[in-house]
C-alpha cells in the first residue's frame, strides 16, 4: 500500500462531476481496487471545488437514545443552516429517536445494532460520500453544540483554507467550564495529539467538526471505532488534510449522560493513550478502526 495520496485519489472529479452512488468509495477490504486518478488532477479538481461558494452540505448527527433532544437539535440545525441536508444516524437506539428525527425533517439512517459513536459517524460519512456531498458536518445529538456556530466551521473550508475544521470550546467563545479531572485529561490528550499529528489542538475531544470532500472520502474508508474524536485528528493530519480549530460555544447536555464519564473516563484515557502511543495511526490505517 503506497502513500501517494490515497485521499486525493478517492476524490473522483470534484463538485462538477456527478459524484453518484458508490463513486470513489472503497470496499472495506484492504485489497480494494486502486483506480489511477493522478494526484495533481485530483488536487486541481479539489481547488475547483473549494472555489464553489455553494457546496452541498450534509449535517451528520449521530444519535443513541436521544429521543428527548433530537427533534430540538434538528430544528435548530435546520433553522441555522436551511440549505443543508440533515441526516441522523440512529445507532440502534431503543427509544423513539428515529421517529422523532424523521418527524423533525431529517433523513434517518437506522443501524440495526449499536455500533458505537465511531461506527455511526463513519456511516454518516459514507452516506455523504455516496450522495455526493462536498462538505460533511458532525453535530452531536444531545444539543451540546450550537448550530448557529456551523457557519464558523464552514467558512474556512468554503474559503479553501482548510480541509477539516474542529469547533473548540477553549478558544475564547462561550463559558464552558469542565471539571478539573477532565481538564487534565484534555491537556494530556492535546499533548499526545501534538506529538503524533504535529498540530496543536486545544479541544481534541470535540465532536463538532466539518470536513471537505477529501476528509469525507478518508473517513468513509477508515475511521476509528470506539472513541474516535482524538484518533481521527491524527488520522486526518497524517493523511495530509489541513486542519483548523474554530472557536465555538458549547452548552451543557440537556438529556442523558456523556458516554465518557466517571470510572469509564479513566479507561477511556488509557485506551486513547495506548492508541495514540502505539496505534498504527499512520496514513489511513488505524489499529482499532474499521478499514
Amino acid at each position, binding site marked *: 500500500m503506497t502513500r501517494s495520496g490515497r485521499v486525493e485519489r478517492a476524490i473522483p472529479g470534484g463538485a462538477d462531476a456527478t459524484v453518484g452512488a458508490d463513486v470513489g468509495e472503497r470496499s472495506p477490504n484492504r485489497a480494494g481496487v486502486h483506480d489511477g486518478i493522478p494526484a495533481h488532477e485530483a488536487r486541481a479538481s479539489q481547488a475547483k471545488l473549494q472555489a464553489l461558494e455553494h457546496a452541498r452540505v450534509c449535517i451528520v448527527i449521530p444519535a443513541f437514545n436521544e429521543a428527548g433532544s433530537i427533534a430540538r437539535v434538528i430544528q435548530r440545525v435546520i433553522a441555522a443552516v436551511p440549505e443543508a441536508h440533515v441526516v441522523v444516524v440512529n445507532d440502534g437506539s431503543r427509544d*423513539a429517536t*428515529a421517529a422523532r428525527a*424523521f418527524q423533525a425533517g431529517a433523513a*434517518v439512517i*437506522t443501524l440495526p445494532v449499536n455500533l458505537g459513536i465511531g461506527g455511526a459517524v*463513519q456511516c454518516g460519512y459514507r452516506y455523504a460520500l455516496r450522495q455526493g456531498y462536498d462538505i460533511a458536518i458532525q453535530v452531536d445529538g444531545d444539543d451540546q453544540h450550537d448550530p448557529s456556530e456551523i457557519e464558523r466551521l464552514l467558512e474556512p473550508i468554503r474559503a479553501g483554507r482548510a480541509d477539516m475544521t474542529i469547533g473548540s470550546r477553549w478558544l475564547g467563545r462561550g463559558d464552558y467550564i469542565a471539571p478539573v479531572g477532565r481538564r487534565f485529561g484534555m491537556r494530556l490528550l492535546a499533548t499526545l495529539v501534538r506529538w503524533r499529528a504535529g498540530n496543536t489542538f486545544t479541544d481534541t475531544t470535540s465532536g463538532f467538526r466539518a470536513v471537505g470532500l477529501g476528509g469525507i472520502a478518508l473517513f468513509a474508508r477508515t475511521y476509528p471505532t470506539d472513541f474516535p474524536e482524538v484518533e481521527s485528528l491524527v488520522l486526518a493530519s497524517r493523511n495530509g488534510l489541513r486542519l483548523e480549530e474554530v472557536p465555538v460555544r458549547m452548552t451543557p447536555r440537556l438529556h442523558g449522560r456523556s458516554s465518557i464519564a466517571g470510572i469509564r473516563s479513566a479507561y477511556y484515557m488509557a485506551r486513547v493513550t495506548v492508541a495514540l502511543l502505539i496505534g498504527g495511526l499512520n496514513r489511513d490505517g488505524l489499529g482499532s478502526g*474499521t478499514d
Partner: protein
Amino acid sequence: MKSFALAMVLSVSFLIGSVVAMRRQRLREQTAMLWLSASLFMVVVSATLPAHLIDRVSLLVGVAYSPAFLLLLAVLFLMILVFHLALSLDRLSAKQIALVQEIGLLTARDPKTPDEAAADQSPERPSEGSDPLSPRH
C-alpha cells in the same frame, strides 16, 4: 503405561473430532489444518516421545521439573491459539461494522424524496406507534 493409554485415547479422539468436523464442513480449511496438525502432533508425541528426552530438553532450558516444561509448552500453544482467534475476531467485527453500516445506508429514509412526500400526504399515514421507523424492542 496407563498414562500412555490415556494420552493416546485423548489425542486420537481429538484427531477423530477434527476430521469429523472437517467432513461436516464445520471447520474451514485453514482452521481445519491447524487442528488436524495439532491432533496429529499430539498422537505422535504420546506414541513415540521418550520420557528421558523431555527431561533432557527441560534441563537444557533450565527447567528442573520436566512436567512443568510440558505445561509451559501447552500454555504457549494455547496463548498463540487465543491470539490467533482474537485477530480473526477483530477482522470479523470490522467486516460486521461495514455490513451494519451498509444495512443502514440501504434502508435510509430521506423525507425529501418525492415518494416520502407522497406518503406524507396519503390519508393512511401510520401513527407514531406503528411507524416502521420506530426501533425494535
